[in-house]
């Protein structure tokens, strides 16, 4: 037996240094393996993944074949906002093999109440990077490809060609038509959703590719541009848009894991309305339209230009009030607080007026001007009869106020009429001491 005193002293050192070298080489190997990122063609799940996906693996509708299908799949999410955030979270959680994220925006404070992928600490970062960071932290098994760029007719085909399923999580009809056209052209199913205020809509399009209706089959003509309201204008409740994004993830998982030949034959739209008696409804929709310009018999051969999509959807008639009737916030403030004390009419809606208001202003919502068609809403006529003063019109951004001021001018009010450039938002920047906030 050899005693400890017989061990040559250098052995311990040498072993330690070799161990360190092995660790170094192993780390290098891991790095190279990861960098080479063998696409999830390795269909085997790691031990950790069996455990990670256990609760869905247990479902007969998923099981090992479903989990393998998820791992093999490549899913593109266009728009990483209120819909894209929850959709990406659930898809990454479920073990989609590769997730593609495309968005040109950066994270802003007003995103955070609903865009649950982003954090206060990632304000200012490109959304795709903020999202990739959160998703890798959630599930390192998912490969993530980011495109920090806008989705345009120029890149649409190259981008979409790389993916199996596409989620439309955008916020404008122009993009919705473009994404649908590209999906038709390249034969990809499209899970499309939208939300505003307290309502949401979801429909799976071009599914199966070449058979199901496309976006143009359902909406052959775009809505008038003045009827298009964004979340930034109309508002949206986080859980409402969140629920729709989660449902998109669900439809995507169903689509990927369903057995061959189990496609739905009846297109359906899922319709959500938080304020209605029946919150969720499934609406039976029409199928493919024979004469559809995108997916019909003629079909599209290539995408239109950026201008063509913009022209198709139109832009609201921008109205510009003559310069002589426009005041800066400073000028308006002087008049209102110190000068001739004109009547200050705030044409934001009642809810916004309730958020903050210039002291002494009166509220006549712009909707009222529109609803009466021509002439003036009664309430303002009353105000003007009482006091034959000059009028200053104020709105949130300085657009509606121009239209309302023009209406007042045309209606022959006795005093002078102006609007305020930049509206309440500009007011908040120039004179926050008036209690005006940007929102």
């Amino acid at each position: 037996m050899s005693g400890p005193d017989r061990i040559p002293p250098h052995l311990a050192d040498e072993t330690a240094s070799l161990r360190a070298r092995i660790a170094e080489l192993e780390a290098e190997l891991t790095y190279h393996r990861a960098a080479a990122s063998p696409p999830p063609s390795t269909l085997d799940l790691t031990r950790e993944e069996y455990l990670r996906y256990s609760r869905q693996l247990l479902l007969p509708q998923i099981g090992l074949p479903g989990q393998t299908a998820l791992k093999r799949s490549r899913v593109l999410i266009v728009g990483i906002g209120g819909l894209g955030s929850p959709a990406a979270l659930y898809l990454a959680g479920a073990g989609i093999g590769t997730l593609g994220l495309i968005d040109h925006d950066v994270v802003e404070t007003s995103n955070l109440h609903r865009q649950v992928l982003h954090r206060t600490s990632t304000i200012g970062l490109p959304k795709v990077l903020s999202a990739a960071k959160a998703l890798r932290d959630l599930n390192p098994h998912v490969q993530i490809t980011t495109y920090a760029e806008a989705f345009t007719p120029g890149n649409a085909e190259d981008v979409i060609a790389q993916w199996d399923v596409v989620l439309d999580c955008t916020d404008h009809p122009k993009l919705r038509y473009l994404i649908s056209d590209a999906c038709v052209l390249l034969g990809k199913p499209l899970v499309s959703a939208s939300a505003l205020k307290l309502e949401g809509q979801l429909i799976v399009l071009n599914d199966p590719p070449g058979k199901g209706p496309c976006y143009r089959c359902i909406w052959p003509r775009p809505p008038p541009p003045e009827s298009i309201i964004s979340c930034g204008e109309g508002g949206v409740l986080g859980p409402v848009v969140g629920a729709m994004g989660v449902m998109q993830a669900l439809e995507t998982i169903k689509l990927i894991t369903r057995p061959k030949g189990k496609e739905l034959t009846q297109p359906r739209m899922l319709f959500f309305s938080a304020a209605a008696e029946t919150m969720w409804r499934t609406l039976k929709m029409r199928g493919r339209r024979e004469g559809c310009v995108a997916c019909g018999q003629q079909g599209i051969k290539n995408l239109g230009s950026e201008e063509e999509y913009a022209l198709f959807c139109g832009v609201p008639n921008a109205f510009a009030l003559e310069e002589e009737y426009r005041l800066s916030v400073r000028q308006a403030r002087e008049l209102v607080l110190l000068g001739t004390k004109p009547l200050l009419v705030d044409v934001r809606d009642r809810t916004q007026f309730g958020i903050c208001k210039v002291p002494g202003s009166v509220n006549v919502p712009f909707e009222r001007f529109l609803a009466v068609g021509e002439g003036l809403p009664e309430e303002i006529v009353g105000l003007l009869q009482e006091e034959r003063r000059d009028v200053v019109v104020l709105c949130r951004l300085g657009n509606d106020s121009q239209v309302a001021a023009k209406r007042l001018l045309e209606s022959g009010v006795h005093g002078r009429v102006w609007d305020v450039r930049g509206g309440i938002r500009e007011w908040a920047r120039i004179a926050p001491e008036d209690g005006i906030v940007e929102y």
Partner: protein
Amino acid sequence: MPAEAMAPPAAETKTIPITVEFSGGLELLFKNQRTYKLSVPDVDPSTNAATTVGYLVKHLAADVMVDARKELFVVEGSVRPGILVLINDADWELEGEEEYVLQPGDAVLFVSTLHGG
């Protein structure tokens, strides 16, 4: 109050009770009221034929809508682009569109397309 006494002298016309619902912002054009329980005549006086959804659309635009922006609901006599019409939760294109003859208890839903996300 005896409601019967108020009724017009026994005319042959009967009415069909239906429910009309607006969503996606369309309710703003209809006094911000989502749901209307309406009674429509079973015979369209202008055609002397059974009352259709086409009649309902014109009736809503002319008599129920107070907003001056008719073009946000009806364009050239038909529902404007971007509005889906659902009859008992089915796209009206599956039911004959404007030609669909209203039945008692029908629920007609007008949905404006949403774009936000």
